[in-house]
């Protein structure tokens, strides 16, 4: 465990990071950069982001506080926080390998074997090995515990049959974290699940791209037909799949393993929409002079400021005493719904030009706002719909009875 750094050390490191991002950050490569790892649709975007993550990692500003022996920087987590702050300051592009570094990595560091750590960690940090996630299935999107993909032990292999859906980067990933059913006679649906780290590029695994409501691609459905993987792929032991899956979610909230740093999803920049409003004209006047628009825009500013400050308040136990789980649990709901509402509202500024879409020269910001609004549903639906989130907050933060 690296010991607490001195203010001087931190300052020095921070200045180095600041200088590096100032020099190396490319904000406009000439094509639209995805706001989240779920929105990568073209090769151009993919290659750019993969290179970018490698570059940041090699510069020592990503994975800085992960163990040195597995490719991390081995520094105290304060250093990574400072580096991430610099990243944000220059509005740097996202880190691409979200499932790898955000989900699989912490799990492996926490519970994996020495061999697994050696094999996986470094290459996921460098974005050499891209990871994807196989939890959801077509027939029960929200009901993960009900996963039906079959994994049957056969000698020192497992035979996989079934299908997974909403796999981001599924057609590009080298590995997948997979939730599969190894026991169909288990006492309850959760007990029958097991967790696997599997290779994607093997016989019996095919993917087909899913066209999003935006008209673009980004997710795939993955089909397993007698796909054989080594029994070593099993992680955490048979029947422990559910608890492994739950753990990945906990890591996402920063539990136990030091955060890898960076961000896989971009904060929405409020000034962007304020600019849009200022530059939009109605009846010859800037739209932001329209009091009705001002009022709505002001409410959004209040909401955005609250959600941003909530992230600071979460780290202040003295202001989290009554319902400690409240802020952490509500964050996804509040943030994703706000982005949906805000991007939808942005269309109201565009007058007749709201009729245009990505690809038309007359479209405002090349259709950025329409695309962002339509894409915002990936966050209000994916990773547990907002309706599910309300159940979670109601039951786990407020102690309300479960909905049956």
């Amino acid at each position, binding site marked *: 465990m690296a010991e607490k750094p001195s203010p001087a050390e931190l300052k020095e490191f921070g200045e180095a990071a600041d200088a590096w991002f100032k020099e190396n950050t490319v904000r406009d490569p000439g094509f639209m950069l995805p706001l989240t790892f779920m929105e990568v649709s073209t090769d151009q975007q993919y290659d750019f982001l993969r290179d970018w993550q490698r570059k940041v990692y090699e510069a020592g500003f990503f994975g800085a506080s992960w163990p040195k022996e597995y490719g991390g920087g081995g520094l105290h987590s304060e250093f990574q926080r400072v580096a991430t702050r610099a990243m944000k300051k220059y509005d740097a592009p996202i880190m691409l390998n979200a499932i790898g570094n955000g989900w699989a990595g912490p799990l492996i560091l926490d519970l994996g074997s020495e061999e697994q750590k050696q094999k996986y960690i470094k290459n996921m940090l460098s974005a050499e090995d891209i990871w994807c996630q196989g939890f*959801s299935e*077509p027939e*029960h*999107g*929200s*009901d993960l515990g*009900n996963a039906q993909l079959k994994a049957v032990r056969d000698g020192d292999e497992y035979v996989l049959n079934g299908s997974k*859906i*909403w796999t981001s980067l599924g057609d590009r990933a080298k590995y997948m974290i997979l939730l599969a059913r190894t026991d169909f006679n288990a006492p309850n649906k959760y007990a029958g699940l097991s967790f696997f780290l599997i290779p994607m590029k093997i016989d019996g695994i095919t993917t087909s791209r*899913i*066209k*999003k*409501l*935006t*008209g673009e691609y980004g997710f795939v459905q993955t089909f397993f037909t007698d796909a054989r993987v080594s029994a070593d792929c099993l992680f955490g032991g048979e029947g422990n799949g559910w608890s492994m899956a739950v753990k990945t979610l906990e890591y996402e909230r920063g539990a136990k393993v030091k955060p890898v740093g960076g961000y896989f999803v971009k904060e929405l920049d409020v000034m962007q929409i304020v600019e849009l409003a200022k530059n*939009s*004209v*109605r*009846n*010859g006047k800037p739209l932001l002079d329209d009091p*009705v*628009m001002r009022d709505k825009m002001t409410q959004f500013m209040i909401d955005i400021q609250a959600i941003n400050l909530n992230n600071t308040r979460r780290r202040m136990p003295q202001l989290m005493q009554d319902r400690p789980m409240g802020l952490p649990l509500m964050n996804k709901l509040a943030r994703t719904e706000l982005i949906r509402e805000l991007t*939808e509202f942005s*269309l*109201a500024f*565009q*007058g*007749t*030009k*709201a*009729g*245009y*879409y*990505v*690809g*038309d020269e*007359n*479209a*405002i910001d090349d*259709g950025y706002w*329409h695309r962002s609004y*339509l894409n915002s*549903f*990936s966050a*209000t*639906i*994916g990773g547990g*719909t*907002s*309706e599910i989130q*309300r*159940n979670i907050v109601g039951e786990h933060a407020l102690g309300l009875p479960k*909905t049956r």
Partner: protein
Amino acid sequence: MDNLGTIGTTEEQIELLDVATNFCRDKSPIEKVRALLEDDLGYDPQVWKEIGELGWLAIAIPENYDGVGLSMAEVVPIAEQMGRNLMNTPFGSTTLAAQALLAGGSEEQQARWLPKIAAGSVATLALSEDNGDWDLGNIECSGKQDGDTVTLSGKKQLVRWADSAELIIASVKIDGTIRFALIERSALAEGALRRESIIDETSRSFELTLDGVKVSADALFDADRSRETIERIELAAGLIQAAEMCGGAQAVIDYTIEYLKTRKQFDKIIGSYQALKHPTVDNYVEYEKARTHVYSAAHSWGEQGRGEVAVRMAAAQAHSTYSRAADRSIQFHGGFGFTHDCDAQLHRRKAIFDGALIGDAAYQRSKLAGLLFD
């Protein structure tokens, strides 16, 4: 308030409602709608022919111009059922063009074009420009009159179905005053029309470059009819789009209900969850209010004062309801809702486009406030 309208129907209106309900349902199944998304023209010429034969383009045209001699009130049920079935054709733009001719055209101009339209010729309007303003008076495109010829210049945006149109009625400024010019598409130069990428994949629109287009002076509406023409276009467009959006709202709510009745999660039909049921009910309530407004607007069509209030109320309510219902439909379809295969997005996109054409709910309310409170 004496400018609040009432509600009522005409026999012809109800007959047309029944006919249109069946016709649009039969001729525009979702597979066909989806096939047309990729189609250049964007609609089925055969269906367009039948629409012409049904006389739907002649409804609001006077009998002396081969029309049926009814009013916009009877156009409403047709637009509603077209919107309900995502049957997008030049019906709206053509009907609007006829209204423009009736409001601003000379007898000769009416005599020349209205019979053609009644017989099924496609027509459209070229109004919007790059400033994105919903105020039809705020335009830059201009015309220079030189003796008998007027030379036009500037760019028009969102000219719907222009590639099929025989007639395009464009607004331009001549000597600072707004005029409407009748342009025959055949007279356009190569490349004057550029297909635009728009949010509503069921519709088609074009950018029209007027530079160099020449029309003869008698292809202009009288200057003193411009104001009346603008008002008529605004009202007629508001009414047609409101009816389409109202039908669309009904469709997307029904589509959502179907899913809520069949989809299972956690071993339960998801429609039994109040988190999905109650917002759907609220959307349905708003839809019924929208439909009431739409038929009230149809009934009040032509009544001084009341007409505009009723139309704008219908447009405001229909747009907010359609937008909200389609937004919730995407959400309530879960993962499938996020795919292009889910029809919810077709409606959500159309709601955005229709709002862009006539002004969204907030814009309609801002206009209403003046009519109601000042």
